């Protein structure tokens, strides 16, 4: 899987010394990770290890207390999801973040509606664009006029993925994208990750499944109790090594 990622240049994303606390609990404690173009970095850890919280600092959902984020080597100010989008960071949230009563096209373009010259929403063009991208991602998708609450789990997932992919993301965050999916749909997501990786996107993948991380990712960053246990090259460690990192917080000796 990990062909050869060129890590000599400037990283696409560098999160440096990130900390965030809720009340007295340090959800993320001085964590640094980076991500290079064409690379998939898996984020692993127990529930509450802080991986989702860390990544929400990058997607703009949370504001970090301390630390710095660099995008292509330039310091980035990300205070809300709109800021993140300006840096071409797109996120597929675990909750999907869809407005249930709106249809697929309205959700895909929510916050970035296509409008006619007089400022009215251009429903026809948005639906056409949605049909086009859904044709690529999930050719069986037909319910374009139904509210997304009427869709199945897999269909809703594909709407959320389409939204992240449509706007030419450079950096993609996927928070447990396959948690609600069947085996076939999981395969589709894996194929999509491969394709996007080849296009030079950097992907942060949060996942519970160690085997899946080993298959899809180039590197894995493991967190425990808000702290970074370590970052390892997935091909140089075994599944057991990664599990040991998750459970015991122990970094294998030979790892990079």
């Amino acid at each position, binding site marked *: 899987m990990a062909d050869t990622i060129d890590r000599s240049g400037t990283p696409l994303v560098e999160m440096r010394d990130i900390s965030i606390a809720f009340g007295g609990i340090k959800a993320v404690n001085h964590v640094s990770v980076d991500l290079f173009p064409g690379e998939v970095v898996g984020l692993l850890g127990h529930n509450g290890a802080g991986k989702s919280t860390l990544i929400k600092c990058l997607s703009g959902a949370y504001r970090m207390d301390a630390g710095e984020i660099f995008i292509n080597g330039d310091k980035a100010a990300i205070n809300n999801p709109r800021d993140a989008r300006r840096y071409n960071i797109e996120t597929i949230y675990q909750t999907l*973040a869809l407005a*249930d009563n*709106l249809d697929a096209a309205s959700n895909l373009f929510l*916050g970035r509606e296509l409008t006619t010259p007089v400022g009215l929403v251009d429903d026809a063009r948005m639906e056409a664009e949605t049909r086009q991208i859904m044709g690529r991602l*999930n050719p*069986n*998708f*037909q319910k374009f006029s139904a509210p997304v*609450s009427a869709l199945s789990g897999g269909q809703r997932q594909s709407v959320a993925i389409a939204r992240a992919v449509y706007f030419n993301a450079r950096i993609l965050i996927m928070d447990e994208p396959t948690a609600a999916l069947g085996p076939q749909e999981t395969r589709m997501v894996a194929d999509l990750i*491969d394709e996007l990786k080849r296009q030079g996107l950097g992907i942060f993948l949060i996942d519970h499944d160690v085997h899946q991380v080993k298959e899809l990712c180039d590197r894995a960053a493991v967190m425990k109790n808000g702290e970074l246990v370590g970052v390892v090259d997935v091909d140089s460690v075994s599944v057991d090594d990664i599990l040991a990192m998750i459970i015991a917080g122990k970094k294998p000796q030979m790892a990079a």
Partner: protein
Amino acid sequence: MNPQDYEAAASTSPTEIASFAGREQTPLQRFQHLLHQNPALVPLIVLVLSVAVFGVLLGSKFFSPFALTLILQQVQIVGIVGCAQALVIMTAGIDLSVGAIMVLSSVVMGQFTFRYGLPPEVAVACGLLCGTLCGFINGFLVAKMKLPPFIVTLGMWQIVLATNFLYSANETIRSQEIEANAPLLQFFGNKIEIGGAIFTYGVIFMVLLTLLLAYVLRQTAWGRHVYAVGDDKEAAELSGVEVDRVLISVYALAGLICAFAGWALIGRIGSVSPTSGQLTNIESITAVVIGGISLFGGRGSILGMLFGALIVGVFTLGLRLMGADAQWTYLLIGLLIIAAVTVDQWIRKVSV
């Protein structure tokens, strides 16, 4: 693997989902779905039925242009305030201060004209500004301070109403005085007569405002954001909607609409009275609920609110013409409210 392979792989994947879309539905489910797509349909059906029933029972006494347009005149204030209430409820909020803002705005328009001798145009502008400001404060507290809308507007209701009584010293400005010195304040009381039908400017304003808002909610990004915020605030925020700005704009606009209702109120009753419009809060919420707008936010149509207000108007006038005790009206409206919310819950299950 190249993109073509990927698409080949994708096309072989989830066939069982496609069959889900084509699943047979019972007529009841299809009806349920229809209502889900057209939330104004239920109140429209109830409105047409109630007009028909009273028409049959009362004949030309009810079914005349005069009586039917009288209903419009009687609901104009509730209809206008209902527009404000509907907007707020669509964001999953509630505005208990609409009636108070309306009255204070009308008092500002009256007092600025007669106490300070300002030109009526300026006084009206100040009244509109006053309503907008009250709404803006509501919106700011809800959006930025994250306070529950119920609490914010409950407090605002008391504050605005007390301000209204303190500032006006509980004095009414008489109709003749307004008519002689500042007819602009009674602008919405002007009438157009067609046959026996009487349309006041206030009625026309109510209808135009409802249509305009319905159009804006459907056809602008702002309208879509209002629905999205009411639907799921967190999801809207994560999708890049500026939730705070949407909320503040909705409450401020609601305040402005209430101020217009205050202006129309002067046209309706002729005078400026700080004690008028006490029931407008409850009546506007009633219109919204009977109109099929979900109190859970994110769903409903503003046209439904207008139908809801008209249903109440039809029952009120119809029962009065039949000589029934006014309490029968309240009893039936109460039943309608509970029925409307029951229907809403049933429609909400459409996709589950």
